[in-house]
């Protein structure tokens, strides 16, 4: 029994890592520009679809190739993400309350166009590809076999989390970007290059979303509808943690991931929707006690 719970916790952390990779870009961009990017789920989907295409171009699966692939697909995605930033520029003006909602509507338009574009280019097929031998195996933990893939996700999520903490709290760029998120006007008055910083955040956020997408395609499937499923979870994670809060998204992603996997383990007989009931229960509890999220308003 105890072993089962430990293993479910591992699964939950692996699931939380995927959610973290998607939601962190969403929340970083909100923290900087006060823009909720509805098209962020599209970036996740493009990560998967780009790696499908790259795989067909590059040929068979070898371990080194997979590492290149996992870097290249997110790189292309981050180019698209930087493109989003430039399209958003004409909309971001005037008082914040007005353009927040306006940009949300605007990014829905972008998301719809990219969804149609993905259907045009990749068709309405569901893609899945063979796992590389490096992560196809299973590792024994406490007498049970766990897919090595989950360990990869676990390690990547942890590594990226630590990297981002280091980036935001130790490097000059990170300190400046925190200042920017705290108060944009004063930061730019002090000579912070806000345009460059927001560009970096867009590139970083979409790179991570693309990485999450290609990792998601590794274990599951990817199609042009993928983004609609992931964006809702990313929103819920971002709201639970507090929009614009880096600590919040770290907490929210793992909270949701662990809750989901534990509830599935204990109440699987009720059907797949029970995990959603659990997610929404957490969501409602957080909304009742902290309407702006657990770390709302704090980076």
């Amino acid at each position, binding site marked *: 029994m105890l072993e089962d719970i430990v293993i479910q916790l591992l699964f939950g952390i692996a699931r939380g890592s995927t959610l973290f990779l998607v939601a962190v870009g969403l929340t970083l961009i909100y923290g900087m520009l*006060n823009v909720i990017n509805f098209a962020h789920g599209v970036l996740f989907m493009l990560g998967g679809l780009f790696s499908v295409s790259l795989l067909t171009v590059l040929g068979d699966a070898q371990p080194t190739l997979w590492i290149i692939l996992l870097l290249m697909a997110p790189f292309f995605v981050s180019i698209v993400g930087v493109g989003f930033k430039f399209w958003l520029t*004409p*909309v971001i003006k005037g008082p914040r309350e007005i353009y927040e*909602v306006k940009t949300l509507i605007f990014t*829905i*338009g972008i998301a*719809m166009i990219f969804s149609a574009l993905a259907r045009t280019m990749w068709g309405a097929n569901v893609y899945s590809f063979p796992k590389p031998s490096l992560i196809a195996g299973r590792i024994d933990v406490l007498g049970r076999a766990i897919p090595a893939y989950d360990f990869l996700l676990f390690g990547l999520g942890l590594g990226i989390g630590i990297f981002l903490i280091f980036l935001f709290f130790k490097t000059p760029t990170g300190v400046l970007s925190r200042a920017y998120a705290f108060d944009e006007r004063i930061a730019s008055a002090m000579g912070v290059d806000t345009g460059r910083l927001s560009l970096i955040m867009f590139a970083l956020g979409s790179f991570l979303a693309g990485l999450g997408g290609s990792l998601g395609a590794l274990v599951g499937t990817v199609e042009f509808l993928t983004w609609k499923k992931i964006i809702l979870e990313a929103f819920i994670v971002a709201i639970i943690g507090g929009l614009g809060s880096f600590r919040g998204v770290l907490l929210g992603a793992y909270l949701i991931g662990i809750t989901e996997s534990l509830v599935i383990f204990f109440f699987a007989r009720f059907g797949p*929707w029970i995990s959603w009931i659990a997610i929404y229960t957490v969501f409602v509890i957080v909304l009742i006690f902290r*309407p702006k999220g657990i770390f709302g308003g704090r980076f």
Partner: protein
Amino acid sequence: MEGFRKSTKKFPQLILWFILVAFLLLLPTFLPLYILIHTIDVIILILFAVSFNLLYGYMKEIAFGHAGFFGLGAYTMVALTKYTEVNLFIAMLIGMLFVLLYAVLVSPLVTRLSGIFFALCSLAFGEFIAIIVWSSRTLGGDVGLHFSLVTLQEMKIFYYITLSIASICIIAMYKIVNSPFNLAIRAIGDNVSRVECIGIKVLRYRMAIFIISAAFTGIAGLLYCILHGIVHPRIASWEMVTSPLVGTLLGGAEIFSGPIIGTAIYYTIYWQVSEMTSYWEYFTGALIIILVIFLPKGIMPTFHTLVEQKLKKEP
């Protein structure tokens, strides 16, 4: 607005209304059946858009999750008529009851928030309905539930039923919009902190308008699923909201006729586009982007200011 209203005399306006009503009543006699079905569809979507605009136009909040209410009533009604021996009318009533119940449950959580938080939280609560019906096998899952209530021969009768229900609802909403109640709502939309200082209970008003809007959306959902003869998870997910959203953006949010005209125009173009190609998302997405950048106020307010300028010049 005021100048426009005063300068036109009552009499020509009355004639215009008479012609409009006569036109709508005589429509089924000369329209082919398939255009009539599209007309019913657009009337239902106009009802949806007007109730969406109660929140968007006057309280300045986007209720992304309204499709949840749209789908909830419809699914309740269909499930009841399919699995139990309940009368259709009673099933509709129970469906509406569910919509009201869900709205009452959700509204205190959502209406405390504003702006982007309101939009995202209402989206989450709307998607909840879509997820539940999507993963439930008894409710049809991914495929949806098929049923037939209206045959093609009965379409003309259904047109009159829809027209009367929709016009009653729209007139009721017009009364709400021009009531002191809505003045408070508008004031809240313009400046919350000032309204709070005056002594108006902001949260109570916001909850009330949210529940009213959800209820009318539920009615639209019931009519929509009776017309199409299918309930599908998609009608409860946010994609359903794009129609009233684009209609409201196109027509103009701060004016009552805006969503009506806007949805009619959007639906007509959308229908033509979707008959030509299945990639209609390009069109809708591009339209949203163009509207947000170039025409943020919509057609009708621009039109009204033009008319006002002309009327001022004439005398």
